[in-house]
């Protein structure tokens, strides 16, 4: 599985799961799955330290989140020990419920962190830039240039530093950096002028701006309005169906606007990702999962993933259906292994 669309659909499913789940069993399961997937992807790229460095980070997140919640929140029945009430903020009971709540928060943060880490492993920069719609072509180009610009800057800094050092600059005071910053600044400016001339000479031109097209403007306003009002209605406990329909209208009008605007843009893209069978199957699978989730959400019988330790800590439920749903996160792994595709990407 390599195609950016399949990965984005995976991202949507994983984000939904990560943000709706509060059940520590499921969250731990997600964490395990993601660590496994990430380890596998990183190993294919030749880095073996991925898991250890991430486990350290996750450990720190869990610790912090647990400790801080216990320090500041003093509700709950099962009490470890008490600090005097008059102590500012931290005074009060230290409870198991509060610790559990903090740990659950930590788990969510860790899962989110791993999800984006995996996206970063799975897609190369070009694919990520490719996700920017064509109407924002100049933004995509700016991102690309910045990728090449920074290595150049680094090299220039060391060249200039060396030249100034040989001229007797001792590089001791802050003022000694001026002879490096100024030539760097000027040469970067000169370089960017040459670059823009070169881009102009090769036919780069800012596309018609969004404002100039009425349809695009209407589309974007409509989308923003629907999404915002859906959110407000949801906040005030209106029937969820209304919000969902509004969300859908907003999402569709965003997609439609981009689609219409994209067709007006006269640039083409050299890199076209090829759809392999695995990518198509995986995308269809994730699309089905997403639609099922949407339908469940509308019908009001969405899976019970939530859990709260308050007011009294209880055993979280463990439902086999929810476990199966969570297992979909591992699908990329199966897709990759089943096709046995090798890392032959030019990048």
């Amino acid at each position, binding site marked *: 599985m390599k195609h950016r669309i399949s990965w984005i659909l995976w991202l949507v499913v994983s984000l939904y799961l990560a943000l709706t789940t509060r059940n520590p069993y499921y969250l731990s399961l997600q964490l395990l799955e993601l660590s496994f997937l990430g380890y596998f992807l990183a190993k294919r790229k030749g880095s073996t330290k991925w898991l250890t460095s991430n486990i350290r980070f996750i450990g720190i997140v869990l610790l912090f989140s647990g400790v801080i919640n216990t320090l500041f929140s003093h509700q709950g029945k099962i009490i470890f020990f008490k600090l005097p009430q008059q102590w500012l903020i931290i005074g009060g009971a230290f409870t198991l419920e509060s610790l559990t709540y903090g740990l659950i928060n930590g788990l969510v943060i860790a899962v989110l962190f791993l999800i984006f880490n995996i996206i970063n492993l799975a897609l190369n920069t070009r694919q990520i830039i490719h996700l920017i719609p064509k109407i924002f072509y100049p933004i995509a180009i700016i991102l690309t240039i910045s990728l090449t610009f920074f290595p150049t800057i680094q090299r220039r800094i060391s060249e200039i530093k060396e030249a100034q*050092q040989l001229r007797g600059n001792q590089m001791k005071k802050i003022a000694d950096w001026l002879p490096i910053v100024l030539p760097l600044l000027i040469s970067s400016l000169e370089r960017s002028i040459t670059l823009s001339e070169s881009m102009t*000479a090769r036919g780069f031109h800012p596309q018609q701006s969004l404002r100039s097209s009425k349809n695009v403007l209407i589309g974007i306003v409509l989308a923003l309005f629907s999404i915002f009002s859906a959110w407000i209605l949801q906040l005030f406990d209106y029937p969820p169906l209304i919000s969902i329909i509004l969300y859908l209208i907003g999402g569709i009008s965003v997609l439609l606007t981009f689609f219409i605007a994209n067709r007006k843009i006269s640039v083409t893209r050299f890199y076209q990702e090829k759809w392999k069978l695995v990518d198509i199957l995986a995308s269809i699978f994730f699309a089905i999962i997403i639609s099922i989730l949407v339908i469940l959400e509308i019908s009001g019988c969405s899976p019970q993933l939530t859990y709260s330790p308050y007011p009294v800590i209880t055993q979280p439920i463990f439902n086999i259906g929810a476990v199966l749903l969570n297992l979909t996160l591992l699908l990329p792994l199966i897709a990759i292994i089943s096709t046995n595709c090798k890392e032959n990407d030019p990048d």
Partner: protein
Amino acid sequence: MIRINKLTYRYPNTTQPVLIDVNLEIPSGTITLISGASGSGKSTLLRCINGIVPHFTGGVIQGEIQVFEENPIQSGPLKLAGLVGYVFQEPESQFVFDVVEAEIAFSLENAGVEQLELNKRINQIIDHFQLNSIRYKHIQDLSGGEKQKVAIASALVNHPKVLIFDEPTSQLDAQTAEEFLQFLVNLTTTFGLTTLIAEHRLERVLPFVDAIAHITQDHHLIFGPPRKILPHLDLAPPIVRIAQSFNISPLPLSVGEFSNKFTKLIKNKYPIETEDSPVDTGPILLLNQLSTNIHDQNIIKDISFNLNQSEILVVLGPNGTGKTTLLRSILGLIPSEGKRELFSKNMEIMKISSIIKHISYLPQNPNDLLFADSIIEELKITLKNHHQRKTDAQLIEFLEPLDLAKQYNRYPRDLSIGECQRTAIAAITIHDPEIILLDEPTRGLDYHSKLELSSLLKNWRNQGKAIMVVTHDVEFAARLADRVLIIENGKMLFVGHPRVAFTQFEKYQTQTARLFSDTNAIIPEDIIFDEKNGN
């Protein structure tokens, strides 16, 4: 076909036009050389042809330009992008993407070329330029020559009718430049291009061009076939100068065209005697078995030589052979093995700060040094770094031989390339070091600036300084060298008398040496001077 009619242009915020009443008609399928001193307006003229001037730069333009069916002044660079391919002076600063393939695709993407066609064209151009091995590589990992090829490929992929080069060979060694120009001629015929090249080194380009457009010091333009224009240039390449002094007609443009009859005639009349090797005046810098590794790769190996007082040592060698690494190893910027001695002291135990009191170094890009508000301020900064002090009068006196005394108060970055470089040289020598190292000092310099530079260096040599110049400009080196060191693949190939270096090693033969191959003549003055003496 390019036709320019009564073109006058001045940049915004200036009073003097940089091009005055330019008339030009370049037929299709030809190669035209644009010559002229630095700052005379060569690049401006080239930028007029693809509409960057005045659409990108602003300014006031009068007259007409016709490039095939387009008028750049009216249509602007966007329309011209498909018609004119432009390769800028430094390929590095014109790249948008990090990968070769993507870079080549850029202009096609902008033009909205359909996917199938786009792939086809990119494959074609990659095959033609034989870039398959570097197709997916990162541009920053390429060699200078490869970068240039990528730049040309990205300009050609859009199938332009006109191809423009701004000083394409200024960073190439003699052999690579020759190969490049041959490649260019083939491109021009294969693709039916109309090619324009701005270049300082006439001796390299002349054999390949059909016409010269020369921009004079007063910003007018003369245009015609090389033989018609050359007599009007005050600084023609060696071969033309020799031919002119012997009234040979028609003027030869390459060594091959210089008929054997003429060489024999001149040679038989005035045989040149061999000279003795230069006297060893006592080494102040001594290198023995110097080797340097960078990233486990052997860059230079077992290099041993002395640098004497009152001597100019020229280091020659192809691109990427380790010349700059040698200079950096001498200074101790990179660790090396072997013996380095300065005034009989082991340099291994010396700090860089004490080495640079005696040795100063001019980097390839003089702009890396300059940042102050005026020339004289630059000098004061170096003096302060070395805890020295001089009066303004002394400083201005120091600037006198560098031809900068009158403009001591000017902002260094407003100066011409030649002046800018001399400012950098002044800034690194004001504390009176005994040894001066220069890395590719002729890059981008026109003939005048090169002559000024060589007379300045000779002057200092006569005052007792030891000077080491790294260059691949053979003609400049022949004029300057007291002794020559040739490095190839990091190894020492030869060290000794310039008359041996510039005659015995085919790659480094000057035009004069190639013409009079069994004499010791290496610069035109050897021949022309003898002629006058003979009379």
